[in-house]
């Protein structure tokens, strides 16, 4: 299993990072974290899928609306490294259980301080993950705005 967060790291460095984590099983339908929770860990997906949602009012009821789905090798919960260290989405395992590696924020910081070269590579990998999310949702936002403008000016 190759993890996007560990791209470019030597096998030894990657192993050192993975040893910081704890393997977790997320049962089907249960939450890995919820919107607003303190973000003290980030997660590497080993198996299964993690569904990211945001609450929205639908017919007067609050519903978790699908935002994105992450698959093995991908990272969720990078709010653990970004102030204010609160999760901005809810993450659940949808149909089947998922297996993740939970990397504690404190342990990662210590590792980065002790291994700045590896920390730099991980930071760049994280920038790729965050940057892609930003570009994706920026594009989706613009498409929705375009439709809103077309409807309002029709």
């Amino acid at each position: 299993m190759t993890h996007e967060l560990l791209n470019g790291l030597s096998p030894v460095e990657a192993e050192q990072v993975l040893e910081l984590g704890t393997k977790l099983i997320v049962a089907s339908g249960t939450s890995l974290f919820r919107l607003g929770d303190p973000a003290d860990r980030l997660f590497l997906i080993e198996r299964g899928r993690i569904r990211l949602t945001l609450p929205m009012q639908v017919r007067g009821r609050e519903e978790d609306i699908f935002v994105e789905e992450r698959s093995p090798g991908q990272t969720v919960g990078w709010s653990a490294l970004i102030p204010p260290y609160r999760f901005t989405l809810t993450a659940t395992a949808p149909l089947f259980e998922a297996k993740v590696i939970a990397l504690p924020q404190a342990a990662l910081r210590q590792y980065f301080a002790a291994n700045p070269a590896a920390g730099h590579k991980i930071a760049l990998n994280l920038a790729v993950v965050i940057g892609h999310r930003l570009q994706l949702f920026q594009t989706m936002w613009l498409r929705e705005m375009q439709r809103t403008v077309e409807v309002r000016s029709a």
Partner: protein
Amino acid sequence: MDMLLMGLCLGVCGVVFLALAFGAAMRSESWNSDVQPELPLVKATASARFFSDRVVVPPAVPPLQVPIEVLLLQIENHVRMEQAAAESFLASPTHDLLHSKTTSPFVN
């Protein structure tokens, strides 16, 4: 004398004929005046058709609501399609791909 009597008879017949014709004409007018009250009905029908032709008012039927599970599934499909479209744009950023259409029921 015969000619005088014949002329007199013809004159009387003419007067009778004119009287009958006048009477028939009068009966026809009075029959028309009997149906006159129905005219407003005819006018009303005509004006109703006029309005029904000009303004098409569909019966007030409440819009059909899909079950919420179906609606949530439609929203999810919409998000997935929009993400796929956004991914296509990011892989090859062009104006056309930025505003490409999807088959999502939310935008069609």
